């Protein structure tokens, strides 16, 4: 009986392996005739997004009201959504991928997950440096990664460039989150582009040497740590600061009011910006509707909502930033092509590991 059982086990195992390999070879077969019934298709856009703001949901409902096109959403982390798109291949139901970082859009593009879109509206509304050269992806909102400092301990005249933060005079003063933050990776990638790999690495190790504490928490936690006096300067994204100033917790507001924003590199290359943006999925089954949605998101109405509800900078020039953003003043932006941030991401991650940026 025992012999019988182990043979059963073996047979089951083998059949499972056969089943599995059989399955995967089937899935690799290119699938055809996916959409035969175009006429009966409901009006939808299927969206994979890494933006989780309630204000975005409101925008989608507004779009549905305007156009009658329903939006179906899967919210997740961009890296995992990209992995899911890869696995689903040509059969995916997703039409549009939205991420909160340009590096991920670039990765989706080079993984052949996106397709180019030829839209006059998008070309006019979105500045050239904020969209892919070949129109595979489009930036929808801008985020600036800036210096935030303690008003009572740092004079703005002492601040100048990102590079200066690596100067030993800031030893034990700098707060910044971990190396796994995509915003830090993109920041470093931009320096690899502007100052070369060697100097970028030197900068990163200078920052590590100047850190007030081991990196931890999110961007807001860095700001709070300045307020607590653990350090004097934080590197963080503007919209988190905006959220703090408008927090439902009066203490958080108070803490944020002790701090101010400084846009670095204004006499040099400019402040680092990143975009959250979108690209149409290569095998989108609802391309026409999807482009409509993209154009809607680049329209004045949507851009205004991005600026006001989430303190992001609109990409559409004619739209004013929110009052809060205006109060911080305008600034000169890093002029580099954002695709570079994606291309250099891996190099940036490796440098961060090598210099011991935890």
């Amino acid at each position: 009986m025992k012999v019988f059982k182990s043979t059963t086990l073996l047979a089951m195992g083998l059949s499972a392996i056969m089943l599995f390999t059989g399955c995967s070879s089937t899935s690799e077969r290119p699938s055809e005739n996916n959409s035969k019934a175009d006429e009966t298709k409901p009006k939808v856009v299927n969206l994979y997004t890494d933006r989780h703001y309630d204000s975005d949901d409101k925008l989608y409902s507004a779009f549905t009201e305007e156009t009658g096109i329903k939006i179906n959403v899967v919210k997740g982390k961009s890296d995992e959504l990209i992995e899911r798109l890869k696995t689903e291949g040509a059969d995916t139901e997703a039409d549009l991928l939205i991420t909160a970082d340009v590096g991920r859009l670039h990765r989706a593009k080079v993984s052949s997950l996106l397709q180019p879109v030829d839209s006059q509206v998008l070309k006019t509304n979105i500045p050239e440096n904020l969209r892919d050269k070949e129109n595979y992806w489009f930036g929808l909102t801008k985020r600036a990664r800036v210096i935030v400092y303690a008003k009572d301990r740092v004079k703005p005249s002492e601040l100048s460039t990102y590079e200066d933060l690596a100067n030993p005079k800031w030893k034990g003063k700098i707060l910044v989150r971990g190396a796994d933050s995509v915003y830090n990776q993109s920041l470093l990638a931009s320096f690899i582009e502007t100052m070369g790999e060697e100097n970028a690495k030197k900068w990163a190790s200078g920052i590590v040497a100047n850190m007030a504490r081991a990196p931890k928490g999110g961007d807001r936690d860095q700001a709070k740590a300045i307020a607590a006096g653990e350090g004097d300067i934080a590197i963080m994204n503007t919209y988190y600061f905006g959220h703090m100033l408008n927090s439902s917790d009066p203490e958080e507001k108070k803490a944020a009011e002790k701090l101010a924003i400084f846009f670095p590199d204004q006499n040099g290359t400019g402040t680092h910006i990143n975009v959250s943006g979108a690209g149409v999925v290569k095998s989108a089954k609802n391309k026409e509707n999807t482009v409509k949605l993209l154009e809607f998101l680049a329209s004045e109405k949507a851009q205004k909502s991005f600026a006001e509800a989430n303190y992001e900078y609109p990409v559409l020039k004619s739209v004013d930033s929110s009052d809060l953003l205006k109060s911080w003043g305008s600034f000169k932006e890093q002029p580099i092509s954002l695709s570079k941030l994606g291309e250099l991401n891996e190099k940036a991650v490796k440098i961060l590991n090598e210099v011991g940026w935890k």
Partner: protein
Amino acid sequence: MNIQRKVSMRSVLAFLSIIIINLPIIAIVSRVNFSSNSNWKHFKQYLLPDAVSNTLLLVIITLLLSGTIGVLLATAVALFDFPLKRFFEWVLYIPITIPPYIAAYVYAGMLSYTGVIQRLCRDWDISLQPQWLDIMNIRGAVFIYSITLYPYIYGVVKSFLENHSGNFIDTARVLGYKPIKLFLKVILPLIRIPLIGGFMLVMMEVVSDYGVIKYFNIQTVSSTIFNSWFGMGETGVSIRLSFYVMIFIIALQVIEEIMRGRKKYNLGSGRARPITAIKLKGFKRYAMIFFLILFITVAFLIPVGQMVVWAILAFQKVSLANLSQIIFNTLLYSTLATIIILILNILIAHSRRWMSTKSGFIMSKLTQLGYSMPGAIIAIGTITIFVAFDGLLHPLYRFFDPNAKKLLLSTSVTMLVFAFVVRYMAIGYNSVNSAFAKVGLKYNDAARTLGISRTKAMLKVELPMLKNSLIAGFILTFIDILKELPLTLLLRPFNYNTLASRVYEYANDERIHEASVPALIIIFLSILAVILLVRINSRKGGIKKK
């Protein structure tokens, strides 16, 4: 001959379900590549040392701390009688309802500059070094894991002590053992087996956790798996690493089995006497109550109280659209997955009893593999399998509907429920298997002499006897799925939200106040489940009554 055929049919079913639930793991393992490329070298040089030492440190200290808490609390509740004992007995389960990542956010928030403690100190002009209150480090992570995971240990140890140790403890007491000697010489050796089972669960939770360590920015094996796969797009390193983690956990289990194998613990007849609780008097009584209240305050009241305050502050900013739909979704699919897990576990545990020790052991380990890998990795394996299934089944779909889309299963909730089953089989398995092991074969054999089949004997005789253990397994699994995050995020179909995904959406955006609202609902629902669990458990011992 007839018997042999039936035995094999049962095993076939059990093996088949085990193989199906392991398909995602096979999908991942089949991608393991051992060549040493530049990424692997980079990883080995810069990330591996920290990842391994931090993970080991976290696991070992968490096991020590949560083990100490769990064992002490269980012993205290089982051995002594004091006012409000019934109340504390179930309240001590409750911290299991707080997902560790939420506890991490809440404690870090409370201890931060804007948190209540530092604010009060400022108001009262007490100067504090911010470092004193820093919880975002390994020590803090151990604290968070211990207060949220100890109930796994508390639960198994307590029920073991209450149901199986009466004879031993009473004998020792008669022999004049003082409490400390009793604890060291009798209780600790007795509870070794359930304790190790609890340790395994806690260890796997800690090893695969990503929420706490990401926020605290601690480099562990799990964070490295995530960062290299999802951050660098480097699948080679992460797959190889998750494979090693899995092997490591299997190895531990094999070692444990070998060690246990040498000493057969036979608890004699099923008529184990319940423990006689000693009434605490005077000072001791108040000390006990004081410590229990203190503990519950730290592990539950403080974090939940803080969340209530935040939820009130942020209530207006939280979108409650579709809330009832979200709760319904969450409950429906958690329940569905839990029922499937329970049925499969019954099938497996039932047939395990007729197997040789070795194949039974292999089978039980195979049911638990899904729990030893990080959730997101299981998720990727599951998508791979479902897309393949859909490819295979597409002709069938088209047979029914010529326009059928190809990705039918993988765009439905089926995929998510399947992944839940893969991942949480281990949680239910422990209670179901120990229940079946406890009754052994005697009832089944007896029923068979009356001429009914083994399966029928199981359904008619054994299941009713084991009802309590099964329901306990059900509720533990249910709570775990309720809190689940990575699978839901990655595998959900369009427009599908759960409470946990809502928590993530706010927390990921560093809006912890807003996240408190859905988090509190998760905790509330889990508490309802715990109350149910305790009420069932307090209707003592299924076996004895029959």
